[in-house]
């Protein structure tokens, strides 16, 4: 007999048993069945667990009142949550453990077999079901009255359309907000969080400045959204260390370079800068960018370099943006190059 013939078509039921049915294990009596002494002990254990549960509830209430949450005192919060958590856990676990222990030791544990039945209905039942469907079809005229049937299909197809329209309008229209930031020609680079503008002469070699655009702090609304897009890391390296693309050479100023701080992978702030290797590491997924080489990705899951902010200095010596970023900042998306 081949392996295939051992199985009936379309069924996972093995009709040839490779291992004989071992049957049920002989019933073994528990200590609590054999000795009244053990049964009484089990009874005490179960009720002890229920008593622990009650004590737990009392502990939770005690903790709530003994360690009131006082404004400004953070350690009070700690003790409050700790004792309430311990008490409530004991309270719930006590009931659970007690119930299980009760069932396992004292309730009957005789093994019972229940045979599985085939899922298929009898031929009579199946024929009867078909009869009912046919009768309903005839009486309702579902097959006969084509107009009703087709308009019903139409109504069901149209019904979800309002939902699509309503849910489609839940958020603001994205528009080009992903493609532009607050940076504009002449926007001064300012310190995060004070908003004090930065002079090129203040950025010494090896320095890192965390930068926000001028005017961000004064924004009335969408301040965080704008910050999340416009955050910039400003670094001065020895100009000789920069490997600059001639087309982008004018984007830096005397070794001062500015890059978007938002990782092109999933948008974590990339700011772990190493002064001598010029590595810029993202703490979330270890994407590593070479700051000296236009933030080329040298390790990790990020797919494109961090966008560079073209900068220069104004008449007073302050660093200003030449323009907005020339490509979208943050995580890449499908039509970002359009």
């Amino acid at each position, binding site marked *: 007999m081949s392996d295939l013939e051992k199985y009936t078509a379309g069924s996972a039921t093995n009709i040839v048993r490779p291992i004989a049915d071992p049957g049920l294990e002989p019933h*073994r009596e528990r200590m609590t069945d054999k000795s009244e002494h053990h049964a009484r002990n089990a009874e005490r254990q179960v009720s002890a667990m229920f008593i622990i549960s009650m004590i737990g509830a009392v502990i939770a209430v005690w903790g709530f009142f003994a360690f009131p949450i006082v404004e400004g005192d953070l350690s009070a919060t700690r003790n409050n949550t700790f004792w309430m958590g311990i008490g409530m856990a004991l309270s719930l676990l006590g009931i659970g453990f007690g119930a299980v222990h009760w069932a396992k030791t004292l309730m009957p544990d005789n093994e019972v077999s229940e045979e599985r039945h085939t899922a298929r209905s009898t031929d009579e039942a199946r024929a009867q079901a078909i009869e009912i469907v046919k009768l309903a079809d005839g009486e309702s005229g579902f097959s006969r009255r084509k107009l009703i049937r087709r308009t019903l299909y139409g109504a069901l197809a149209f019904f979800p359309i309002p939902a699509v329209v309503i849910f489609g309008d839940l958020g603001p229209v994205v528009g080009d907000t992903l493609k532009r930031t607050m940076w504009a020609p002449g926007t001064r680079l300012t310190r995060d969080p004070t908003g004090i503008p930065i002079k090129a002469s203040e950025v010494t070699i090896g320095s890192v400045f965390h930068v926000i655009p001028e005017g961000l702090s004064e924004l009335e609304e969408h301040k965080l959204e704008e910050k999340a897009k416009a955050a910039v890391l400003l670094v001065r390296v020895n100009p000789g260390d920069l490997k600059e693309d001639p087309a982008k050479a004018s984007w830096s100023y005397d070794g001062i370079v500015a890059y978007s701080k938002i990782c092109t992978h999933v948008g974590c702030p990339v700011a772990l800068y190493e002064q001598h290797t010029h590595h810029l590491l993202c703490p979330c997924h270890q994407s590593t960018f070479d700051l000296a080489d236009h933030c080329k990705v040298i390790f990790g899951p990020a797919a494109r370099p961090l966008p560079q902010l073209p900068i220069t200095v104004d008449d007073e010596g302050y660093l200003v943006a030449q323009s907005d970023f020339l490509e979208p900042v943050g995580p890449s998306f499908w039509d970002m190059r359009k």
Partner: protein
Amino acid sequence: MDWFVPSDLRVEIKMESQLNQKPMRRRPWALGVVIFLGLILSGGGYAAATQTYQAEFGSPEQISEGRKLFLANCASCHGTNGEGAIGGPSVIGVGAASVDFQVGTGRMPGQASGPQLYKKPVQFTEEQILAMAAYVASLAPGPAIPAEEFLRTDGDVTHGGELFRINCAMCHNAVGAGGALTEGKFAPGLQGVSEKHIYEAMVTGPQNMPVFSDANLTPEDKKDIISYLKYVEDFESVGGYELGSIGPVAEGLFTWIFGIGFIIAITVWLGAKAN
């Protein structure tokens, strides 16, 4: 130069010289000038060193003592005039703060080359460290050892915390527990580091740490940051055991071992027959 100045003016002038000269000191042409000055100072500079000084730090005796220590302990890597050699970078212009940090935390003299120098028991006395710092400071201007007034921990903790989270926390962790960097390097934990060494690290940028000059974070800002670090160091964690304050790694491991372990134990117990 610091030692030309009466002691009562010294602190102020130091701060100013830092502000004015630091941005310039690593321009390409400046290096040549600095080396030239360094050679003059170390070679012919003894004539200048014979003048009378009031200030203790940077006195000619101290500088000459520092130079001896430097030649005996540092010169094989940093060059006999601090100009740098195969093993180590130039120390001209790194300032007294850099020497005080590197030697004062035991990182220098370096034990072995590698991705990063480790903290180890300090090899010199406070006096010897100051002497070497005075010698290196005499080579060219650089960040000075910070004044006591910026090392107190009574600054604005809230402001310091905000500055720390913006400028430092990405590498050093939100409460200064430290963290990993690329290729075997790491940002060390800041708990237990002295106020002076924290300040000096900010102002000099040791190893791969960037520099946070006084033009970026003012001495007051630095004081606030130090106050914040000392505050969290002494602060009892609200969330219970910190597990090293390193966040999801330690907490996740704890949950997997004890939390999941507890659930597995209960599952086994539920499935077991009573005897």
